[in-house]
């Protein structure tokens, strides 16, 4: 990897890390999601500085084209994140449905209560 590529990767990884942490501080991002992204960006920094790590890992796993290891790893991580999102979405969906039901039932109870009040007034 060229020095320029190394520096670019390190700067981008650090930049995203700071941006994500800052979003948490501004309360625009929940810390659990931030953690998800930091798991990816933080290890990128040492990788950018010492690209030899990738080659060593390639040798260890017996992969002849070491960067392929990096690609598979990152797609796996991204896949994991996307699956996690569908899980969160499903949870959110069922919660919004619950909230809708809850409000409808509360409205019905309110109507009942108001009707009972009116009834009392007339007698």
């Amino acid at each position, binding site marked *: 990897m060229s020095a320029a590529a190394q520096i670019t990767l390190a700067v981008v990884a650090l930049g995203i890390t700071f941006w994500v942490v800052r979003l*948490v501080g501004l309360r625009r991002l929940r*810390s659990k999601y*931030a953690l998800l992204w930091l798991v990816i960006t933080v290890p990128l920094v040492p990788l950018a500085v010492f690209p030899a790590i990738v080659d060593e890992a390639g040798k260890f796993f017996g992969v002849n084209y070491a960067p392929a290891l990096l690609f598979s790893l990152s797609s796996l991580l991204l896949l994991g994140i996307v699956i996690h999102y569908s899980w969160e979405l499903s949870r959110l969906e069922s919660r919004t449905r619950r*909230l809708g039901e809850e409000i409808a039932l509360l409205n019905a109870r309110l109507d009942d209560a108001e009707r009972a009040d009116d009834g009392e007034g007339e007698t």
Partner: protein
Amino acid sequence: MSAVAVIPAFNEEAPLGDVLAEIAEIDGLVPVVVDDGSSDGTAGVARNAGVACVRLPFNLGVGGAVRTGLRWALDHGAETVVIIDADGQHDPADVAALLAAIDAGAGLAIGSRFAADAGDYAVGATRRRAMRILNRLVRTTTGFAATDATSGFRAMSRPVVEYLACEYPVEYLADTVEVIILVRRAGHEVVEVPVSMRERAGGVPSARRFRLAFNFLRLLVGIAGGVLVGRRDGGRP
């Protein structure tokens, strides 16, 4: 209404009755149970005791339940709020000392089971170590020498309740530890009051300690975010 006792409860039908009976003995303290989506008879126990019960439609976690309770307290004109666990671990006899600290001018008073003259309380080695790390975290970020940063037994003044009702971090650990940091940074005084905590009187202890590492990292990210933003805009909360 002067003081409200917020009691977060998640499946605590067994110990809740006794806790409410003890709290009823305290003059001028209005209890509210926040039923955090329990699947047992928690809400029924509160209703039978004639205590206000806010029922959440689903489980929001301790932090979410407390936050709901704080908003109820504001709606009902509370001057001070004390948070008491529903599992009987917090001794209502200590409420007076917590409220006295608030009357003396503190914004947040934390009941510490490890303060110099607190009662004995046994915790597992791992948990104790984690607690020590969290105390140190609070000390290095705020200068406040916490001895029990994760204690949920607390009292707060109305200004702090107003601040926290919209800022309260709902994640586990953040709901106790980060709150201290937020309150300090918002310029309020934080003090500790020695209390004696008891074994839980029934119900199931939380298994949350198994997720401690994840929660710890999450807390660190949250605090780091606060520090980063705080510095950028000149220490404003």
